[in-house]
């Protein structure tokens, strides 16, 4: 599987290496070349640039990508790049990591796949505090990804 990951922070770099270890073709993008110090696995391809720039995404092989994952620390960069990946490059599967719950929900409702890790972490911590066993992701984020047939943000929608 070809996977393009935007953002080489902790989440992005770990994800890249987990997938590369399973022999997937992984390219990671970050505007700061320094961020690649987190990547020890030489099989992970690295591209320097910003993820809302089509030329950069092309260089990362977005046209052949099966999956696009946006995990920069900017919610809006993740939202915009995910929309470019799906709407411009028809990447079949994509997900934006979002910190702001209201933004994550608003975009989920218009068909952009988002996962709000703040909600996820807060829910897990709450259950820990209350001595409740941890549930599935679905218990913390509802729904975790957009469902098919959701309205698109087109035209005057």
């Amino acid at each position, binding site marked *: 599987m070809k996977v393009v990951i935007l953002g080489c922070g902790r989440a992005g770099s770990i994800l890249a290496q987990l997938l590369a270890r399973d022999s997937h073709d992984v390219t990671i993008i970050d505007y700061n070349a320094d961020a690649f110090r987190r990547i020890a696995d030489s099989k992970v391809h690295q591209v320097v640039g910003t993820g*809302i*720039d*089509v*030329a950069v995404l092309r260089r990362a092989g977005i046209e052949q990508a099966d999956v696009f994952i946006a995990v920069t620390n*900017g*919610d*809006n*960069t993740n*939202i*915009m*790049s995910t*929309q*470019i990946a799906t*709407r*411009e490059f028809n990447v079949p599967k994509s997900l934006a990591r979002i910190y*702001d719950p*209201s*933004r994550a929900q*608003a*975009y989920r*409702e*218009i068909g952009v796949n988002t996962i709000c890790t703040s909600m996820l972490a807060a829910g897990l911590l709450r259950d820990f505090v209350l001595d409740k066993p941890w549930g599935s992701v679905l218990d913390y984020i509802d729904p975790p990804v957009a469902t098919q047939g959701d309205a698109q*943000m*087109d*035209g*005057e*929608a």
Partner: protein
Amino acid sequence: MYVIIVGGGKVGYYLTRELLGQDFEVALLEKDKRRLAYLQTELGEVVLPGDGCEVRYMEDAGFGRADVVVAVTGDDEDNLVICQMAKKLYNVKRVLARVNDPANEQFFQKLGIRTTVNSTRIIYNLIEQTIESDAVVPLAALQQGEYEIVEISVSEKSPVVGHTLMQVNLPPEALIVAVLRGGEARIPTGAINLENGDTLIALVRSEAEEALATVFA
């Protein structure tokens, strides 16, 4: 008319000042605390603290009753999200985004943000106009540059001088919409005789611009 401007940089600042001068009801959102203090000193209570893509600040600013939302931060991704959220959550009828990278304009269109302003492209077009030595000079771009309004100078060497407009073999995707002569503009018929010194205004599909230029050169 209630206008909300997000982003208190230079564009946001001057825009707010202009609109206040025209008696619009205006709110300007700025998330940087230091910039906010400056803006509040200069513009007063219309300047509100907060991030224009966060719902609680959008509520405070009254996005629900805004007639127009203008996103003019320096970051295209922020401007996109501000406009999309304004449309999606608050049904704001008119949203306008500043786009910094010309390549992003088409995505904004695709993602439902129809009105964009791109200063990079405007300045680029102005430079192109001043350095263009050809007889055809672009005046304005329509439909994200798919069509152009151009100005054509008819010189004495031009092969069209002395011919009627009907006799001129224009490319199929070009239309002469005005002939400027002697300080007057005329909407031409096919019978008009073209003269040295005429200036023609044409609507042309951008791809046909070169073909149009060769007709008059």
